[in-house]
């Protein structure tokens, strides 16, 4: 018995030595091979562009500005769809599976659909916390964050208002968080991404000054407006508008007659410049309110891609001001 045990131990020891030796050789070979590969082919020399998947087309447009030729960007939600509700298709899963970077608006905007898809795509590189996951709100100053996180407290969104891309100045922090994500997944391209991001911020800065001037020219600055839903809080803050009330304070819950009556009475006081509505809602009620109160109704896109002409983040605000300008003019005439 004792002898057999000793024999066994000897065999095991020999086996262990042999495997350790073999393992060391294999490890060494792998290291050398990798070093060689790295020496021959630096990371940024890869010809294949990085695959970036965003939840909305606004993020996609900014990702294209930052990534240039080094990225191939697709957006899951189209610009004419409500980003709160997206019906997933099988092709989404493949896009997520192959993505090097995933960018979301965050603040619970996509909570109804994105987490399930991310889990289902089985791509650990883009899961929350991984280098390939970007919450585009991370560097943005988010407003309307409740002081208390309890939902019982009333009308609050636990992580603040998620419609921050409608303040054009927020394009810069969005671009920076996308740049940081791109640098994490492709460090070799850091110089390019930094340069492109800085360039975008510079162009955006110029454009923001222009839009603010335009807001003054068309007589929008300082005006009071009523909006359909809460999407316009950031836009209003950026251009010094006061949002007096909402048509439908809760998404998906039709307003009560009292609320509509109060709203109509309030709007008839004559100091409301515009009734602003997102383009993916049913316009019948706002149209009726607009007719009753003689406040011009303007239906506005909230996203890049809402129609074919809005391709970039710059196009979006150009389009918004063109539409608002037209509505203000027609309102002034009547």
């Amino acid at each position, binding site marked *: 018995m004792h002898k057999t045990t000793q024999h066994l131990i000897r065999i095991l020891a020999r086996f262990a030595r042999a495997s350790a030796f073999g393992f060391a050789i294999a490890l060494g070979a792998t290291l050398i091979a990798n070093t060689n590969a790295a020496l021959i082919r630096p990371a940024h020399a890869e010809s294949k562009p990085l695959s970036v998947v965003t939840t909305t087309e606004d993020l996609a447009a900014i990702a294209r500005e930052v990534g240039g030729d080094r990225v191939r960007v697709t957006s899951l939600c189209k610009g004419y769809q409500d980003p709160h509700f997206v019906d*997933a298709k099988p092709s989404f*899963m493949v896009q997520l599976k192959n993505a090097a970077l995933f960018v979301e608006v965050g603040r*619970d905007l996509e909570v109804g659909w994105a987490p399930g898809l991310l*889990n289902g795509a089985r791509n650990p590189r883009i899961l929350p916390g991984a280098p390939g996951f970007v919450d585009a709100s991370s560097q943005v100053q988010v407003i309307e964050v409740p002081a208390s996180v309890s*939902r*019982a407290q009333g009308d609050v969104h636990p992580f603040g208002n998620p419609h921050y891309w409608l303040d054009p100045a927020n394009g810069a922090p969005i671009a920076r968080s996308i740049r940081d994500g791109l640098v994490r997944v492709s460090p070799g391209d850091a110089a390019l991404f930094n340069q492109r991001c800085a360039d975008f911020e510079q162009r955006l800065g110029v454009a923001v000054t222009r839009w603010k001037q335009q807001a003054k020219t068309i007589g929008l600055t300082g005006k009071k407006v009523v909006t359909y839903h809460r999407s316009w809080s950031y836009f209003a803050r950026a251009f010094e508008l006061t949002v007096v009330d909402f048509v439908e304070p809760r998404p998906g819950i039709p307003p009560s007659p009292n609320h509509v009556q109060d709203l109509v009475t309030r709007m008839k006081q004559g100091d409301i410049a515009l009734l602003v509505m997102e383009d993916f809602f049913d316009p019948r009620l706002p149209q009726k309110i607009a007719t009753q109160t003689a406040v011009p109704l303007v239906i506005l896109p909230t996203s890049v891609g809402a129609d074919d002409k809005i391709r970039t983040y710059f196009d979006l605000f150009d389009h918004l001001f063109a539409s608002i300008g037209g509505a203000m003019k027609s309102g002034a005439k009547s």
Partner: protein
Amino acid sequence: MIEQLPFLLWPFLGLLCIAAIHVYLGLHVVEREVIFVDLSLAQLAVLGAAVATLWGLDPHDPPTYIAALGFTVLGAAVFSFTRSERGRVPQEAIIGIVYAVAAAATVLILNNAPHGAEHIRDVLVGQLLAVGPTDVLRLAVLYAVLGVLHVMWRKKLLLISADPVTAKAAGVNVKLWDFVFYVTFGLTVTASVELGGVLVVFSFLIVPSVIAMLFAERVGARLAIGWAMAALASAFGMLTSVWLSAPPGASVVCVFGALLILAGIARPLVARRA
């Protein structure tokens, strides 16, 4: 095309789980002429979850689930007590009323509930592509337990569905067994609706049994036909959603519609040969 298929594996297995029990329950439902009872019970579950938010519970808290379940059981009790053999008021009317009132009550409650509670209604939509191994396992376990109960009590349950008068004459407590039926049914559909949405669940419940009824009389034969149809619709629906790059739930439902039309065309041919 090929690379999309792996992502459809778990949703497909989920649909097969749903098919396994819904085809069987569908035979009961069509026999009882309570076609929309699944919508009604699912809406009651949503109402329960909405009521839970009034107490400040988060939609994802376990007590919310218990509230949803409680309302489903309540619905089961209502449906077992409103089934009368004389049938002055059809059961389907009660079911429709419960659905409409539950849906409207949900709107009233969410009108006063904290912001974010609107998402409670999302469970009725389902998100098939997000179905993963844990969902399928949970569904399989739940349905296995319910399936065993239905196999154990099959004689009584089938008899009260098909012929409540005879059952009562034979001394069966019809109301009690009706209640048992609706509770197991409610548990089944609330779990499946969360995965596939109301449209998908409704189709799995009704279409296979209707097709089966076109071709067979016996329960065993109807089950076999129904299961085959449901499996076929799941597979073709998934493939269609890839071909058209469309949401899978809606694709499966439309494939079910096409299957029913084909079955309707095939039936006279089969009957003539027989």
